[in-house]
Each structure stands twice: as structure tokens, then as C-alpha cells.
């Protein structure tokens, strides 16, 4: 899967499952601080969503990998099975 496609799917998941307005979701927008302000409860949804879409388990993964859409995309690209 192409990187742009992965990033787009993650963005859609964040809009749909976490109810974040699409206009706030630049690829480098900080998810757990600033304007968006997700918390640890939201991380459960992200983990479930990434697992459901890509089969990549992010349980116990360092929080830097959740920083923004770019970080999530990088992690999925590095860990998804070919």
C-alpha cells in the first residue's frame, strides 16, 4: 500500500472514530496536544483502528509513534506485512 493511501486511511479513521474535524488534521498536526487534544482514552480507539485497518498492533508502542498522522503512517509502513 502506498504511503499516501495509508495516511489518507488513518486520517479518515481519525475523523470517523475520534470525531476530529477533517480541517484540523494536517499530517503534522499534533494529536495529543494543542488544538486537537486527544488523551489516553482516545489512544485506545487509535490502536483499535490501526489494528482493524492494517493488522498492525500498536499496543505498548512508544507514544512518539502516536504524535501525528505522519508518525502513525511511518509506524504502519514499517510494521505492516507486505
Amino acid at each position, binding site marked *: 500500500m502506498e504511503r499516501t493511501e495509508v495516511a489518507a486511511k488513518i486520517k479518515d479513521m481519525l475523523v470517523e*472514530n*475520534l*470525531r*476530529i474535524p477533517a480541517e484540523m488534521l494536517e499530517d503534522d498536526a499534533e494529536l495529543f496536544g494543542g488544538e486537537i487534544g*486527544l*488523551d*489516553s*482514552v*482516545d*489512544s*485506545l*480507539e487509535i*490502536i*483499535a483502528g490501526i*489494528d482493524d485497518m492494517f493488522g498492525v*498492533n500498536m*499496543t*505498548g508502542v512508544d*507514544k512518539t509513534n502516536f504524535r501525528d498522522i505522519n508518525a502513525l503512517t511511518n509506524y504502519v509502513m514499517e510494521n505492516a506485512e507486505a
Partner: protein
Amino acid sequence: MGKGMQGILRGLIQAGMYLAYRPKVVYKNQQAMEVMNGGAPVVFICNHMSHKDGALIASVLHKKQPYFLIAKDWYEKKQFEGFLRTYGSVPVDRTGMDTSWYDACRKLLEAGHSILIFPEGKTSKGEMNAFQPGFAVLAEKTGAKVVECAHIGSYHLFFGERKRILIGDSYTLECPKDMRKSAYAKQIAGQARERILHMKEILEAMKSGKLKFTGDKADKAAWEMTEIQGYEKDANPAAPVSEAAATEEPQQ
């Protein structure tokens, strides 16, 4: 060790718990009994008073054979590890941002197993701790019903005060479109805490005789609960209060 050993162990623990602490169990209504007798997996939530709660409440809920969440530091104690793994429990690391429990519970629910969660996350003496919202996130994601339970009483071995358990409302969660799921889960957690607090008051009233059993003794669901002042019999447990609804005039 497989399902057979798990069944034997659960049976022994259940017998021991009933013999030792003689729990008195009541169901709020017929719906509560039907959920217990039904086949669908559910997420039980309950107040947390003692380290014995996991074994006792799971024993009371034996028809659903729930897996219960337990603090990782307890799960890894050598003297409990084998027992807890065989019985069926899920460790939670309370010291860090551990999400593995969520993954494990999701898979258990998808496989048809029920889960018992103590949302306080730790035991409380006196005032209940705040409820963590994880159970609500789990239930909303999987579609599993939440079943509220409450218990009172100290653990007196063989003699003295009996443990009392009330099995109450069950509901399915669905986050409104205009609400962030984490906000919804936190709201549900707060509301559930209030209801379980009220359930504890009901149990205390039963214990003191202020609330009498009015139905056929063979029908445990025939308790009339509405005598308790302030108890909202018809309130929808899973009704969210979205930002939009909060600004509306209250209905009569």
C-alpha cells in the same frame, strides 16, 4: 491446562466463595435475569472494595464465566500466576499507559467471553473512586452490553455479615455523531458510577429492612425498587448528554 482445568478451577472457586461468604444476590428486574441467562458476551462493571472481589463477583456471575481484569503486579506474583492464568483473568499495568488489556478484552469479547471490570481501578473504602472510562470504550467498540453490579458488606468467613450483590441495568452504548468517543466514554463512566452508588444505597436499604421484598420469593426479579427516593426507574442508562441536549429545556 485447557478448558477442562479452567472449568474445574472455576467450579472449585465458586463453591468456596459461596460457602465462605454466602453471597445474597438480587436482580433489579427481569431484564437483568435475561441478560445473565442469555448467550451474548457482556461487560460487567462493579464497585471495588477488596482484593477478593474478582473471585467473588466472578463466582456470582458464574453463568457468564467472565474474565476479570486484575492489576499486573498481582497477576505476576508467583503464588497467584498459575491460578490467575487458568481461572481466566487479564492483567492491567496501572503504572503506565498500558493498552494491552484493551486488545485482550476485545479479542475475548469477539470470541464470546464476558468480561468483569472494576472501573475504579483500585479498591475503595468508604467513598467510591472515580470510574475510569475504559470499560465504556470497550463496550462501545465491540457492541457488548454493559451490566451494572454493586456489592456491599465485609468479607466474613463462614459466619456473620453476608455479602450482598445487586445485578442491575444493562445497556448498549452508541456514541452520538456530534460527540468525541472519549468524551462519551467519560460521561458514561460518571453516570455509571452514580447509578452504582445508588445501587449500593438500595442494598443498604434492603439490609436494614427499609426496602422490603414485595414479590414471590421464588421470583428474585420481583423486587419493587421505586420506593427508594430519587431512584429513576425509567431513566435510560445509556442516554448521552451531548452538548446540544445540554442546552435544551428539560422535558416534564
